[in-house]
């Protein structure tokens, strides 16, 4: 899966949670929870969405590494290429 495909995938999961948000203008370093007004329920759904889309296992202790779009993509890419899912 290419980086672009992964990015589109993550954005589509985010769209499912915050349908009205303007994802195009989302900066890679912004805190997703603040920028998209995501509460703990939204965040859980975000993790579930990523897991279902990529198959990557995301334990609770790793939540802190999914704060920004850049971190999330890095986290997923690392696991996808190492075949850990």
């Amino acid at each position, binding site marked *: 899966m290419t980086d672009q495909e992964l990015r589109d995938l993550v954005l589509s999961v985010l769209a499912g949670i*915050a349908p009205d948000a303007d994802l195009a203008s989302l900066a890679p370093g912004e805190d997703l929870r603040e920028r998209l007004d995501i509460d*703990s*329920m939204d965040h*859980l759904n975000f*993790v*579930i969405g990523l*897991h279902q889309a990529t198959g990557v296992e995301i334990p*609770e202790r790793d939540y802190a590494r999914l704060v920004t779009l850049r971190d999330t993509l890095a986290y997923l890419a690392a696991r996808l290429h190492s075949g850990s899912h």
Partner: protein
Amino acid sequence: MAEFRMPSLGADMERATVVHWLVQVGDRIERGQVVAEVETEKGVLEVESFESGIVEELLVCEGTTVAVGTPLARIGAVAGGEGQPVPGALSVATAGRAAPAVAPAAAPAITPTVAPAVAPAAASAITPTVAPAVASAAQSIEPAAAARPAAQTRGRRRISPAARALAESADIDLDRVEGTGPDDAVTLADVRRAQRQPTSIGAAEPPALATGEDHAAPSTSAIRPAAPSGLATDAARRAAMRASIAALMSRSKREIPHYYLSQEIDLERALLWLENENLRRPVEERLLPAALLLKAVATAAVEVPEMNGFFENSAFRASTAVHLGVAISLRDAGLIAPAILDADRRSAGELMAALRDLVRRARSGGLRASEMSSPTLTVTNLGDQGVTAVFGVIYPPQVAIVGFGKVFARATVEENGIRNRRMVTATLSADHRVSDGHRGAYFLAAVGRLLQRPEEL
């Protein structure tokens, strides 16, 4: 003494008319002897007695029609008849005639089991008594008409073609229409309801606009209204929701004498249990702290019933059920507090699933009417937004609302040094007409106590 009854002579015979008695009172009759002629749809049939004895009384006179099983005559035993030896049916004397053999005395008379059920009027009563159970049970084992494949989970909502067509022509955003059909599918009626009402949050019943179009089966072209209905735009919808929240909150402040309590609760044991529990659960079934908090509140509500019910026409009515209202923010359209039904009887896992489902449907406009109108106690949680404590405004006609702030760390001094313990501030706003601070405090203490043994929640 035995009864001679109208015999069932055919699978579809229900009644018959006694045409001719061949015996009178006092006659001695033998088993198998023809005692009467009866008229059925198939013509006249001879009817035999299965008892030997003396005819004591003819209960039905000639010419009367009776249902199968109706007693026709009473037959008394022959004097000293009990010990009678079995006359050799085959003794030479009777060789020429197939003499009826008398069943040995010990044989129980064949009492038709249907007799008691046979009321003379209800001829159909002779159908075997299992009939009703058979009919209903048969459906249950009918193999499922079709193995229903799991529709694709994400994205595709269940919307009937007719509803889809009407929504398209009436320019209605289906995402805002609550489905009340099977599995929450959106039906034609749902779209029509959305057409008629401002997007109220279910508080006020929509005015009964008995318009003709309810009944006529609309073909899609026929129902295109002349001008788009006023409430179609988002802004108008948001304003309407704001107005109804305002009305509710004002009424609450006006009518309900709130008293407020707060208490800090140690969540360390609960959160450790939760983290351990989540390691075992697949991602889709992971629990949030909210699930434990809801469970604790629901259980405490059972212990302190004054917090759980309604205050109407100046009297409090406690509710046996605990339908826990959960305050959910609709990203752009304000706030609603639908109920998780029977929260006290659900496990933490079930509450989590219900919560996830409720949030998903609330945000996609797919809430069931029953969930909107029946919370018996509400919980609000603004921890995610960083608030330490929130004192909620009670939703009339409820009589209390519980609030939770964010989880914070508190250094505590213990024998083996300073420990960081995670805490949360729980608050209670309650109706002073129904309960006093003392009971309120007991309620919050109960919530705290329950959260110290998470495994039991």
